């Protein structure tokens, strides 16, 4: 029983981090209308950059890692948006072009990791060593750190979206881009910022989860798929849905991994997704995504 609770706590914590990753993806799609296929590669790069700085330079000072890597990810996201995506927005086949372009970028980025870092798995040491025992449960400090950090980011993001003018402009563009233009919101600037934030969130996820999952050049794809599943299961366009789905899947993943073994984890993600879609085709809280 005690083990079960600990597994729950782990799943819950990872769930929050999944939420960050999923939200980044949702923002990208909801605001920018871009299905970012290189999202997984951004995740990988976040982790590897963290590794470079933590192991290579900063002597495991994670504070430094965050304040260096996150802005880099943001700027990188903005660059990708301006260089790759913006020129494509003119085209009638935008959806498709952007899918291919981000796919190509993903392959490029993945193999860049491969070329630079080699194919062997790497691991990022935990932020904090040791664990704390509370009321009979043992929780690693690492988990606590993850939880706190992810929570802070999630709350900060929520406030940002709700209260700040930039955040509101992003919501406006997501809800009605024409309306946003009418009101004087500079569409392209919003796209750029959104992509930057999305990339940053993804990178944050990569940093937080790197100590738990082994880092490989192709490792990011799993997280792209997970983010996709969370977003669809929660309902495209519903942040509330993304939140619930993140926790649901995080916890379920932990339980499945604990009981059935890691091999069953990915299939389980798909099973849950299909189960949810069977009952609610638009996701838990989704608006209609169907044709006619």
């Amino acid at each position, binding site marked *: 029983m005690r083990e079960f609770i600990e597994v729950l706590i782990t799943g819950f914590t990872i769930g929050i981090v999944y939420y960050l990753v999923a939200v980044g993806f949702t923002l990208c799609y909801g605001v920018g209308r871009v299905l970012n296929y290189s999202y997984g590669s951004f995740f990988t790069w976040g982790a590897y950059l963290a590794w470079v700085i933590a192991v290579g330079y900063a002597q495991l000072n994670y504070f430094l890692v965050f304040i260096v890597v996150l802005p880099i990810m943001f700027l990188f996201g903005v660059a990708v948006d301006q260089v790759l995506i913006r020129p494509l927005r003119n085209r009638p086949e935008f959806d*498709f072009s952007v899918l291919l372009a981000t796919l190509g970028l993903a392959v490029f980025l993945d193999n860049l990791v491969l070329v630079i870092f080699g194919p062997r798995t790497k691991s990022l040491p935990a932020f904090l060593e040791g664990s704390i025992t509370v009321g009979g449960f043992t929780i690693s400090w690492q988990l606590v750190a993850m939880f706190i950090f992810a929570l802070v980011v999630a709350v900060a993001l929520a406030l940002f979206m709700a209260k700040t003018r930039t955040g509101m402009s992003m919501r406006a563009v997501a809800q009605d881009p024409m309306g946003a233009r009418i009101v004087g919101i500079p569409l392209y600037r919003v796209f750029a910022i959104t992509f930057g934030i999305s990339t940053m969130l993804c990178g944050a996820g990569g940093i937080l989860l790197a100590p738990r999952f082994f880092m490989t050049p192709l490792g990011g794809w799993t997280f792209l798929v997970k983010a996709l599943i969370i977003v669809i299961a929660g309902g495209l366009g519903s942040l509330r849905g993304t939140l619930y789905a993140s926790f649901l899947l995080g916890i379920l993943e932990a339980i499945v991994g604990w009981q059935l073994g890691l091999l069953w984890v990915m299939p389980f993600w798909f099973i849950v997704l299909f189960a949810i879609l069977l009952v609610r085709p638009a996701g838990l809280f989704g608006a209609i995504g169907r044709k006619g």
Partner: protein
Amino acid sequence: MSDQMTGPDLRTGETSSKGGARRPAQLPGDRPKALRLNRQTGTMIGLFVVLALLPLALGDSNYTMRLLVISMIWGGVAIAWDLLLGYAGIFNLGQIGFFAIGAYTSAMMSENLGINPWWGLAAGAVTGAIVAVLLGLPSLRLAGIYIALLTLAFYEVLAPLLTVGQAIGTGGKRGISPVTPYSIGGYEFSGGQQIPWYYLALGLFLVCLIVGYFAINSRFGTSFIALHDSESFAQSLGISRYKVSLLIVGLSGLLTGMMGAFYAHYTGVVSPRVLGLEVFIYLVIMVLLGGIGKFPGPAIGAFIIIFVSDWLRSFDRWRLLIFGALVVIIVMLAPQGIMGAVDSVRDAVRRRFVQTPLGDGPDGDGPEGPAAGEAQAKETES
């Protein structure tokens, strides 16, 4: 409505009707153009003739022939995929899944059940078609992004499933090997003698070309292009998008599964590796390079990519890096691919030199002015 000002519209999931209510290239009621000589048939015939005669020039060069066989295999798949991508407008990311299904079906039949591999070809095609249709059933009712996501899910889940399916004889992570080659009479195909493989592959490739061509140009085929171009217009003619799309998906799966089956017996091994990202990106770049929606461009793209990839063999790790960058560059700078470039050049040449006094369009499509004829020619060529 295509907004002049840049900026995406709210994605409602409806297929964008390009350029408003444009009359589709060919209505189902029009005179069938299938059997005339035009850019598509010309290229097809040229390709076939070249390939048929090539072994005479190559003589003993087994290695080159091997590359050609591989090119033909992927050329067929590329054509099949382009039917969905470029003509029906379906973002199917699970195409390689059909290939793998065909390969595994045929391999399992010949290795686990001892059935003659020739049956495997048919079986692979059929299972490919069935799986494709099964995938299409839920996907096609949904908006574009859902199709992409669902087919991606299918693609992602297939490899783990095949690994776990060791129990039913999929060979798990290692796959199945060796896989029995074909035999005719007493003669068994072997790796040392490429000629029989070559002509078998050529036959299959021709099947793909012909089926693809008729799918696009026949009365039936134009109906699904019409759907893609202008949904409301086509619906007014009573064409059910869903049914037609399912048919096309099934056809695509059929061709792909068939090629997969052949691939299994040709390479002598099937494993989950065929579902790897590397293969997928290769397919993507083949279709892109050749020209999406520009039959038979994707097949030509396949040949180019296979040979370029072989040429870059020594670059090892850098190869995929280059390919990834190549995809991005092509999408950004030359999205119409090679066939598209050819089309543009051809149209430019036509406009300068071909003046038809009767006002017929360059293809003799009917009494319209040269300008309209040209515009129509442009539409029919795509």
